[in-house]
């Protein structure tokens, strides 16, 4: 039973996001749950003359490793993985979880150790991405586990996922190019600003962005996409932020996170639920207490919170702030094994100021600015 929307998704990922060309070595990474999409991707990569290299995870292996492995086993970096990131020309990674909370029972410190051990792998991968040597996109496949997080039926969730990727439109790629142009203009304008202040209930946060680059995200590295982001000045972040939405991360959930920053560092952190995990993540390394990314979610086709960061951080009318690693292309310098996106809804009772001037209200940039 082929779902034609899957074919459209595969088309966009192969021809638009990664632009596969003859001779490309293409990593296709997912889980067995996404097999229907994987087959469509595989077919299109072969059709484009590429060499697909399939990397499929085994359900349950992460939990076994983190709960039963020795420290040495947890920190072991598979040389095959390093070689993948060294050699591949393109990578299409598709998240497809059978249980988004499967790691809730493991020791967060061991989980942090796992991430820290893989930092060099991630850095090399980002380095090659930046140099244009590795074109990489992260996407997701609708599973019942994700539908459950979204509190939807699978059918409703599928409709949500495909709508978020503009795959219900006649020409999805044209729609992504159009959004890309709009976000490009917004980014250019934001690049001229020095300071952003976000005010909403429970939140009054100021970030310095002078000299930093804002990046428009148009479906090349995330799919779906739709955000503009930068790396804030490392010691500039001041104030308090309450994250509206629960944050799903590393196979568990943390609810009601409130952070207070001073001199760019988190000096106070609490959560209604999952606070020990939050603390463990903040203690992962020196960079984990700083904001590595600040972004505006700009995808108007994503309206609802679904508990999946890939979608939640793009909700039109939200901002997100990531603890940890910044993307060097934004000018951010923060290094960390952590990169944890936390989302704040600004669609009601909210204002954003740029260099003291009101530029955004209740989830939208003021139209008169553009």
């Amino acid at each position, binding site marked *: 039973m082929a779902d034609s929307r899957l074919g459209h998704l595969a088309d966009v990922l192969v021809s638009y996001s990664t632009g596969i060309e003859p001779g490309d070595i293409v990593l296709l990474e997912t889980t*067995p749950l996404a*097999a229907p999409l994987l*087959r469509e991707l595989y077919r299109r990569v*072969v059709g484009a003359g590429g*060499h697909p290299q399939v990397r499929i995870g*085994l359900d349950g292996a992460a939990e*076994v490793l983190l709960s*039963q*492995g020795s420290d040495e086993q947890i920190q072991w970096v*598979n040389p095959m993985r390093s070689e993948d990131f060294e050699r591949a020309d393109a990578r299409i990674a598709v998240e497809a979880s059978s249980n988004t909370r499967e790691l809730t029972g493991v020791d967060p410190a061991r989980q942090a150790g796992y991430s820290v051990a893989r930092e060099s792998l991630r850095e090399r991968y980002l380095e090659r991405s930046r140099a244009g040597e590795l074109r990489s996109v992260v996407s997701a496949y609708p599973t019942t586990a994700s539908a459950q997080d979204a509190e939807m039926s699978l059918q409703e969730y599928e409709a949500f996922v495909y709508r978020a990727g503009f795959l219900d439109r006649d020409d999805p790629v044209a729609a992504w190019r159009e959004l890309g142009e709009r976000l490009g203009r917004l980014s250019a304008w934001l690049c001229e600003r020095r300071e952003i202040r976000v005010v909403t209930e429970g939140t009054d946060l100021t970030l310095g962005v002078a000299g930093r680059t804002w990046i428009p995200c148009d479906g090349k590295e995330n799919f779906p996409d739709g955000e503009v982001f930068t790396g804030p000045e490392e010691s500039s972040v001041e104030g308090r932020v309450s994250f509206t939405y629960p944050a799903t991360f590393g196979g568990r959930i943390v609810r009601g996170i409130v952070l207070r920053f001073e001199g760019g560092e988190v000096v106070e952190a609490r959560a209604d639920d999952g606070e020990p995990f939050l603390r463990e993540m903040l203690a992962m390394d020196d960079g984990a207490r700083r904001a590595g990314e600040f972004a505006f979610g700009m995808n108007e086709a994503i309206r609802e919170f679904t508990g999946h960061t890939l979608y939640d951080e793009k909700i039109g009318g939200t901002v997100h702030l990531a603890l940890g690693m910044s993307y060097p292309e934004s000018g951010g310098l923060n290094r960390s094994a952590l990169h944890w996106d936390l989302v704040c809804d600004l669609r009601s009772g909210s204002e954003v100021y740029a260099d003291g001037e009101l530029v955004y209200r209740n989830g939208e940039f003021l139209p008169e600015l553009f």
Partner: protein
Amino acid sequence: MNDPRVVRLAQVIVEYSLEVRERQILRIDAPDVAAPLALALYRAALAAGGFPYPTIAVDGLLEILLDEGSEEQLAFVSPLQRHEIETIDALATIWSETNTRSLSRVDPGRHARFLGAQRQLSNRRWERISAGEMSWCGTLFPTNAHAQDAEMSLARYEDFVYGACHVDENDPSAHWRLVAASLRRRADDLESVRELRIVGPDTDLVVGVEGRKWIAADGRFNMPDGEVFTSPVETETEGEIRYTFPAIYHGHEVEDVRLRFEAGRVVAAEAARGDDYLRSLLDMDEGSRVLGEVAFGLNYEIDRFTRNILFDEKIGGTMHLALGSAFPQAGGANTSGLHWDMICDLRAGGEVYADGELIWKAGRFLAEAVTDPAEPVEAAERG
């Protein structure tokens, strides 16, 4: 997935077959449908101090490559695969399928070219195994597709598979160590034989084995296992053989194969069904008409034909004689793109003579292996 037999199968493979040691990298090749065994292997390898990683396959990808790939894509061996085969210390392969006939309709020529290119990897793997640089074991996780081929329910097929592996017992490693000792003695006994004569219904075949080394297949490379085999002298096979069981190659079934050999080569061949396919394989290359292997199947827990060579070639009381590539470690010299195991049931009226002396009748060696009457093979039979 709480079947304790799955856990024991994983343990026997990690501890006995592969002997995974600390810091050894174990790749676990498994199709999605074999996930329970893959996870059990992963767990067992971690417990042994190894660095395991799974590589999971899903249905339908190879078919796309074979149907739609360019010649260049079919022949492509990625540098990632080359690196991997040089790097791993151990490999566990789970052969399970959800549809054993999914490739029945792909172009055989294209499939052969794909396999030809991939052979660079398998050849290198065998080189490293022979040099003692890595270990390998192939096994099977029971699925409905294999049960269907065996004409059994899944539950009965599971009993069959786990019984053949002796993982329905508490200490399968101990069992396989006993089997290994027994098979080694059997192989030693056969070492002095110059010529085997196999006599059965429509079968009277002489196979020269002088100077060849007999190898005990004792559960290290396959699980289950249980055979002794060698590669015959290339020019001495003479006479006729009729294979009672269907001969299966890459999902194609050829029924009632009859071959006539002269001076080591097949000079006449016929089959009741699949005659054309038989001929196309015989004409594959210079070595495809010559025997590459002769073997005694000695796993008496495997008592029926199930259309899966992992089990069929070990059926207690059968012999198999494979056309095509020989085993260098047995002293065999024949090379071919083909290695086609065909099985001859000798349980009813079969006899085997070694240099004129009757050594095997109705599927059993007449004498226990000479050196030790402690009958570990009998122990294996009792299960």
